[in-house]
């Protein structure tokens, strides 16, 4: 199979992007603050991890999602044109819907609009466009679909881009589902009681070695395995036995040619809801047995960034492979018993150069990617 390289990764979050983001995560900081973008009265929580976007930064006629995207797209313009762009944002139409469709100033609103706009901004007119949607696993599914395209020779380079903002639309929806924490988001904690939302954008460039040589840059990591599965259980509740996620982990490891003992860390979806985190721990025990190894979630720090979550987490994992350690799980005080010895409130050393990133979403979807350390240097 063609080597698939993660050649570039750009993220923007409430804690910034790039090296600053990794440093903030490693310091255990949280980006949560009181929502100012809209009136949070009546929500379970007034807190979210929003990115400060000054009005002056927004170009005329562009929405907040685009402003967020511009921050991550700019550094990519120096790259050779990619063959495929996959948009994986979930609710890019939130501002449009909230406006009552009255203002032309909130275009774009369909996934297709975003992929076209990204192509225009990057100046890559020949790029083929795709739009992936799989709820909160969207960008991980986009990565899996992109990796398959590169592996099969259908594309030599795939840029997966996703962004979702903290909107009234999503906040009210998650509040109505009683999924928001009234306090602090504490993934895998014994007293966890829900998630908080966050702004997030991510762009991950997957390519084979020919494109990497043309780009003249070394990979951040290799993407060696991926899988997408369904729980076949319920549209909003995860399968209690974690069967879908377990199947995805096993399939991704099989593709990577790795066994569970070789995995050095697990970047969990870790939303901080009671049932998601319990399902993930069940799945981890199913696949990895009683083995204690680093498991972490960054959603206590960045909030749940919906479609962008998997992309951001993939970039954080790649940087963790470079540094040899994974960030703490912000918000954690007392890990629930099955998380003890796995999830901590401090940085943890990677046990190997193999890391798994997992995301799950409404509709029962699970997506997993396997990232591996490279020896650096040009491809």
């Amino acid at each position, binding site marked *: 199979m063609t080597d698939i390289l993660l050649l570039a990764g750009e993220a923007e979050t409430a804690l910034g992007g790039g090296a600053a983001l990794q440093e903030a995560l490693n310091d255990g900081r949280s980006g949560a603050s009181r929502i100012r973008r809209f009136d949070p009265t009546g929500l379970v929580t007034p807190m979210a991890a929003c990115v400060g976007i000054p009005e002056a930064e927004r170009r005329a006629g562009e929405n907040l999602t685009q402003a967020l995207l511009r921050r991550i797209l700019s550094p990519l313009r120096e790259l050779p044109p990619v063959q495929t762009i996959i948009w994986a944002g979930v609710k890019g139409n939130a501002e449009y819907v909230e406006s009552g469709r009255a203002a032309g100033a909130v275009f774009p609103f369909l996934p297709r609009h975003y992929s076209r706009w990204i192509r225009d901004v990057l100046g890559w007119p020949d790029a083929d466009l795709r739009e992936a949607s799989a709820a909160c696993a969207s960008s991980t599914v986009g990565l899996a*679909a992109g990796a398959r395209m590169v592996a099969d020779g259908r594309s030599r380079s795939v840029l997966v881009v996703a962004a979702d903002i903290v909107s009234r639309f999503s906040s009210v929806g998650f509040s109505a589902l009683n999924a928001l924490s009234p306090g602090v988001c504490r993934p895998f904690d014994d007293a966890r009681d829900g998630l908080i939302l966050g702004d997030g954008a991510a762009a991950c460039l997957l390519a084979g070695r020919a494109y990497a040589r043309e780009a003249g840059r070394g990979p951040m990591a290799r993407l060696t395995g991926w899988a997408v*599965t369904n729980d076949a259980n319920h549209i909003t509740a995860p399968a209690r036995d974690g069967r879908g996620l377990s199947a995805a982990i096993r*399939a991704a490891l099989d593709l990577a040619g790795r066994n569970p003992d070789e995995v050095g860390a697990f970047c969990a979806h870790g939303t901080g809801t009671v049932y998601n985190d319990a399902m993930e721990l069940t799945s981890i025990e199913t696949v990895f047995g009683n083995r204690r190894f680093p498991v972490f979630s960054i959603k206590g720090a960045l909030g749940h960034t919906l479609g962008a979550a998997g992309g951001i987490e993939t970039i954080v994992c790649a940087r963790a492979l470079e540094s040899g350690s994974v960030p703490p799980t912000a918000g954690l005080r007392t890990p629930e018993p099955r998380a003890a010895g796995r999830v901590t409130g401090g940085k943890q050393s990677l046990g190997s150069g193999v890391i798994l990133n997992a995301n799950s979403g409404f509709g029962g*979807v699970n997506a997993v990617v396997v990232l591996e350390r490279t020896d650096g240097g040009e491809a």
Partner: protein
Amino acid sequence: MIAAVTGAAVISRRQAPDGKRTWELPDRDIGRMIAERFPRFGRFDEYTQIGCAAIFAAAREAGFRPGDPRRAIGLILSGQYGSFDTDEAFYATTLAAPELASPNLFSYTLPNIVIGECASQFGWMGPTYILDGEGGRGRAALVAAAAELENGCAEAMLAGWLEIRPAWAPPGPEGAAVIVLEPDAANRPRRLALEISETGGIRLGSGEPVETLDDIFLALGPSVGAAGHSGSLDQP
């Protein structure tokens, strides 16, 4: 590999004189059969109802039944507007007060929920997602589904197109078209044989390239979706 199309279904919109949407259903009894199998069918949004109906009809022809043992069967759909109508319907419930927002409608603001509804009923645990893109109707889903099948990620893959256009959208086709793809086997009835290459290329048995779902339905002939039963899915 040689893949077989073992099931197919089309639901298309018929323009009613009063301007309301009615649908050409593949089977007069489809609404009743689905309502029996999907206890919450009446609470689905229209996007999910139409999608479920087409998926149900195609899957039934392929021999899949709700309640079957869980298997690695996947489902990929294409579509441009997704659940936009439902997004607006949900948001309307939030305007008086956030506390009055409909959690049920919020779930259906995700276009992949229709896939989750069917996966949970039929026990499908394979790759399931929405993938749209440039090219003809359903092309992105079809190519991705063929690749998943060719790479052994699923025992069978459903690929389809699902579109409900919001009232403000420009006119265009609406409805759903779904096929079931399985590795060809001598003991299994098939509608059509397709050759899938390792690089995801798809050809008919005649050698003609397949670019979109429409190419497949053209090859299947007029029998698919031609029943023309008109009806409403929420009142079977």
